[in-house]
């Protein structure tokens, strides 16, 4: 280990990080960014991690390409596994640094973490996040800044990644550091309908939610904080969200006993009435 410093010293640019290169380009590891050599070699950044990982020093050597232990395959595999875990734990810390945020931002812009599956979010890019900062608790989730909700990764190769490798704060810090990146919010939403009628139970909930939104916007206005809703909603949108859906609705009861009565096809766009 003594030679490590000379090894990396000033030749950072043409130094090839074999292990990290291999690791972040492996299938399933697309969510990780590459942690800088500088960050890894500053022991201060790794405080406390030595007790979290088996064969900590060997694992760190592997990550920094100075591993030279002669060992059997089984041992090698154990250390390899530790190195992956260690990389994840360091990653969680690294991505909330200025450098790390910038790297993750680049990946966000390239949609490396996928797109929001919610139709009304129009493929807004996602960010990886954890529901816990403690390892081995919860798998990684994906955060959409547009609907502010979290989703499960589509692919099973991502759904097994530990959420603690990204942590609970990173995605929120990103938008705090780059407020200009907060996407405009919209009230656009799906409303379940049957032959053009809104479904009453859902519509009642929508009305209640709209009222909640209206109250929030009034609170923000009072504090002179931008609500972030797109202007297309209209200038004085608070007023029109009060009673925006006064229209025909269909009660579930209406169909409880004889759905077939309504099921007679009446043509698209037309409104069905019960016989």
């Amino acid at each position: 280990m003594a030679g490590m410093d000379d090894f990396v010293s000033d030749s950072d640019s043409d130094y090839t990080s074999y292990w990290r290169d291999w690791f972040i380009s492996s299938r399933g590891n697309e969510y990780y960014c590459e942690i800088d050599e500088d960050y890894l070699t500053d022991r201060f950044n790794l405080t406390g991690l030595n007790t979290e990982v088996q064969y900590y020093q060997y694992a760190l050597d592997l990550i920094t390409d100075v591993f030279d232990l002669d060992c059997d395959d089984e041992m090698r595999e154990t250390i390899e596994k530790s190195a992956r875990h260690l990389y994840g734990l360091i990653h969680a810390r690294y991505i909330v640094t200025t450098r790390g945020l910038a790297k993750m931002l680049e990946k966000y812009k390239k949609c490396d973490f996928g797109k929001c599956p919610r139709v009304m979010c129009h493929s807004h890019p996602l960010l990886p996040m954890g529901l816990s900062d403690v390892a081995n608790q919860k798998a990684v989730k994906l955060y959409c800044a547009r609907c502010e909700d979290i989703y499960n990764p589509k692919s099973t190769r991502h759904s097994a990644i530990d959420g603690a490798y990204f942590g609970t704060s990173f995605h929120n810090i990103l938008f705090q550091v780059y407020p200009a990146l907060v996407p405009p919010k919209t009230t656009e939403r799906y409303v379940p309908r049957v032959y053009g009628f809104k479904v009453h139970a859902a519509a009642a909930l929508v009305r209640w939610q709209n009222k909640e939104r209206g109250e929030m916007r009034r609170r923000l206005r009072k504090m002179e904080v931008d609500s972030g809703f797109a202007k297309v909603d209209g200038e004085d949108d608070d007023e029109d969200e009060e009673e925006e859906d006064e229209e025909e609705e269909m009660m579930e009861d209406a169909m409880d006993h004889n759905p077939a009565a309504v099921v007679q096809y009446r043509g698209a766009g037309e409104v069905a009435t019960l016989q």
Partner: protein
Amino acid sequence: MSTSSGSPESWISSFCSLLGHEYFAEVSEDFIEDDFNLTGLQSQVTMYKEALEMILDVEPEDDEDDEDEEEEDEEDISGDGRDGLAGRHERRHHSRIASDLSVIESSAEMLYGLIHQRYICSRAGIQQMSEKYELSHFGVCPRTNCNQTRTLPVGLSDTPGEDTVKLFCPSCLDVYVPPNSRFQTVDGAFFGRTFGALFLLTFPDYDLTKSGGEQLANLTRTDESLNINGMWARNIAPGLGKGRVYEPKIYGFRVSELARSGPRMQWLRKKPEDITVLDEARHFAEEDGDSDDDDENMNMSGRPVTRRRRAGNARVKRQGQNGSPMATEANGAESEL
């Protein structure tokens, strides 16, 4: 039509077994053969008659008298050892030029889709879809707080060519893009706008809190089973409300609403803690007040609820005010999709 290797797969079942067609139900021939169900479709599909024949695996009728000859030919072909779909196509090919055939093939797919939109809203069709639903054929909601609730395939439009099929989650009442890109070529109109909600109304007893991995069961009705606005309280957006709304935090501290990057969308995933707040029927009855005469709002007699405005042109007036480009359709149907 007899071939050496048993009965060939029908056009319908081979269509439904294509990659990306996993959401489709097999429309029964009875449904297709009832002309009433096809009302208005003739004008929407080119080579309608031929397309319909293809769907039903009916031999094309020839106007000429050489029908006998034709049949002999067919037997010769099947005798050659050709069977199944290839054989049938070969026979069709026999009486038509190839370009026609591909037009008919795509017309048949369009026609099948349009019939399908109607079929899955019929008693038999919705029943068939419920069997697929129970088997989780339509996947599960990608939203973490929905705990893998089974979804339903829906269209955002009833007109073909406008949008691809989406998945409706009854737990958060939202719609999602199917996870696999193979569904991004499936027309949403083949499922239509009505099916998703109609399904919930038709099968109100499914326990919507069950995840796609679990056996789907009916709600166990307890004394607290409340019926609100015609739905069991437990089934009204079970994925929303307290504990199901994401709270952004930084190092354990909640991000303030007043921050530029603070939460703005929580209303979308909220639900009143006391769900009876939504029971407008009761509130309306209790408050009574100056109800206008044509407000049939809470009619429980088995009719659609009409929440009419007092003045017939109220809506028009509102549109004039806010000038929203979205609010142009007669009943505002497109204003929120």
